[in-house]
């Protein structure tokens, strides 16, 4: 009887489940902001990419003409694509591997580990503007630290106009970028290392497993999800690099540090035109290229075999 009465009774409201109206009320502000500042600009960029935007709001539909010009005649665009690709591949690899190495060093608790962790992480907290200005000074030919150190070491013949020579400019910007982000990867790897199951590492030690074998066969496989995530995130960030390049070189000399993002900005705001159609086409094309790379990378790095503990 009691059971029957319970079945017939109205279900008790779940305090954790809110009514649709409540949900809507709380979600609305975030959704409105998201739609206004994310969805609309993205859709608008897609729309602009197939138009020539004339002044006074006049828009002329041009189909794929912007894309055709971009892919066939725009040499600076391809230069920017090359630079961005080099930047994304080299800096991502260095970022992730460097972060992992530093994390492994600090995880082994060397002297001053806490201080070193703070030192490595501090650049992450600095804005690109500050980092860019500091490194422009470091690279300065006459009074910069880089050349001063070379002179002090008796290697004056190697001094360079680091940011003023097309052969060294992109590499110099990359070093700055890696310096800024290495600490971030290090912290993430340290957290992941701390979360590794101690019994697995302990068992390996009992089996007399050396540090290198432990690193290659146990630690790195277990860090694989972290490595994949950091690689993908780092890659996406570098494919969109703008601020640091803009501050340090503005894309020069001779377009040797021009990235796709700096080129979009230049075409939008530096070319004596109000046409946002062409720069939008660059942005749209680049959006798809990044998407393709992210999907490919995720597939390549996808872990097929589950680890068994």
């Amino acid at each position, binding site marked *: 009887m009691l059971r029957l009465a319970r079945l017939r009774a109205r279900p008790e*409201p779940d*305090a954790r*489940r*809110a*009514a649709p*109206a*409540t949900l809507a*009320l*709380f979600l609305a502000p975030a959704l409105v902001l998201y739609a206004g500042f994310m969805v609309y600009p993205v859709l608008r960029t897609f729309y602009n990419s197939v138009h020539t*935007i004339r*002044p*006074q*709001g006049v828009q002329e539909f041009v189909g794929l003409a912007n894309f055709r010009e971009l892919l066939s005649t725009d040499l*600076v665009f391809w230069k920017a694509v090359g630079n961005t690709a080099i930047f994304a591949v080299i800096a991502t690899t260095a970022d992730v591997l460097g972060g992992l190495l530093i994390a492994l060093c600090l995880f082994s608790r060397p002297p001053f580990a806490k201080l070193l962790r703070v030192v490595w992480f501090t650049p992450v907290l600095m804005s690109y503007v500050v980092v860019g200005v500091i490194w*422009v000074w470091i*690279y*300065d*030919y*006459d009074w*910069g630290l880089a050349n001063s150190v070379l002179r002090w070491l008796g290697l004056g013949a190697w001094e360079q*106009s680091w*940011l*003023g*020579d*097309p052969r060294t400019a992109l590499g110099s910007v990359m070093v700055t970028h890696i310096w800024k982000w290495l600490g971030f990867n290090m912290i993430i790897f340290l957290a992941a290392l701390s979360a590794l199951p101690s019994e697995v590492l302990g068992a390996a030690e009992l089996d007399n497993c050396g540090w290198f074998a432990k690193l290659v066969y146990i630690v790195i496989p277990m860090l694989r999800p972290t490595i994949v995530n950091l690689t993908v995130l780092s890659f996406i960030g570098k494919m969109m690099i703008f601020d640091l390049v803009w501050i340090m070189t*503005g894309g*020069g*000399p*001779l*377009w040797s540090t021009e990235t796709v993002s700096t080129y979009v900005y*230049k075409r*939008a*705001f*530096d*070319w*004596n*035109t*109000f046409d946002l159609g062409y720069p939008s086409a660059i942005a749209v094309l680049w959006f798809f290229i990044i998407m393709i790379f992210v999907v490919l990378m995720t597939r390549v790095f996808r872990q097929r075999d589950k680890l068994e503990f």
Partner: protein
Amino acid sequence: MTTNSFTRRCVLTAAFAITMGWGAMPAPARADDVTLNVWSHEADEDAKVALREQAARDLEKAHPGLTVKITWYEKNPLLAALKTALPAGQGPDVFYVEPDWTEYVTAGYLAPLDDLVNWKTIQPWARQVWVHDGKTYGLPQEAYTNEIYYNKDLLKKLGVELPANAQFTQSQFLDLVKKAKAAGMTPIAQGVGDRPFPGAYIVGEALLRKLGKDDYRKLFTGKLSFTDPRVAEVFTWTKELVDAGAYPKNFMTLKLGESHYYFYSKPGALMLPMGSWYTGRAFVPEEKGGQPKDFPLGVMQFPAMDGGACNQCKTSAIGASFAINAASKQKQLAAEFLNAMSTPAMGKRWIETVYLQSAVDVDVKNFSGPYAAYFTELMERQKGTDYFIGGPRDMVQGQCKDSFAQVMNAAFPGGLLSVDDTLKQMNAACYKGS
């Protein structure tokens, strides 16, 4: 608490908040409360800020209830703000413009000022810079000429005397650069770290003198090829200067302000080719980074070119100008603000505090003050001059403008390109056929 009652409370709270928010909103503005919005560049130049703010306060006094709100920008953020705000119909009433920003004119964002502004106080040639298809679109405020500033003491130290007309020949100038370099001096303090034009001063002025005004204009409007032998001669001479070590090693990253400091303080240089607006930044107190009071500043002409068509030519240009937004609903008030900035008194104040030529018609012979000697010398250098109005950047657009910045301004004087490569790249970007 049930879900329904929770929802009711939320809705009531939201309604209360909205009601209170409504009540807290400011009361509608009085009819006579008007705000004139002005966007200006040169936030870092105290004298110009003070002068424009003074004009704003003067106008407010003349119109009770009016607020003139000047928003101060640096150039690039101002450009980005204008290029998004104007198409969106959100632009200010008045904004800073420069003559090479021609896209604002062609796009129809600038109101013609012919019947709005009092042109009697503006020098006619300066107004002419802003005339497009018979209408005037900008009110010029700042005028300048391109000069070579030099350190008189260093020149004396080299044992070189400035010719009576203050103009070296091209070979004398090359010798001067070599002498300075041999004496351990930096011959020319110049850098392109944050500007798309300073590196092209020497080659640009040399082209003007060699080609004469008409062909010089043709070159930068795509009607004369960069492969013209006269053009090649100028670039070859400039390359000799570059190879002789005319520019500092940090030329590519040295910023404009730093190049000034490099010239008059540390480490010091013999010459600084620059628009005469240089003094607007240099004649500030030393503790603010200005030129030392006792610095032996001299002004010389750009060198005469062998077989030059116009060796007495010189670039004169308009810098800071102001325009009225074509969509502004307060054009008359906006024009009054422009007039307030261009009274003869303001023109005099401009010269005396900004230390720079003005587009306002002012008698500079009456100039006095700590820099009177400098102005006397500057005026001396203008005698017999045939002015070309506007710099190369006023004439080039799009790909040509980008190549001008990257090639002529930076890579070529930076020693990264040969003469042939430079001419080829400039020609590809700029020449449209005769």
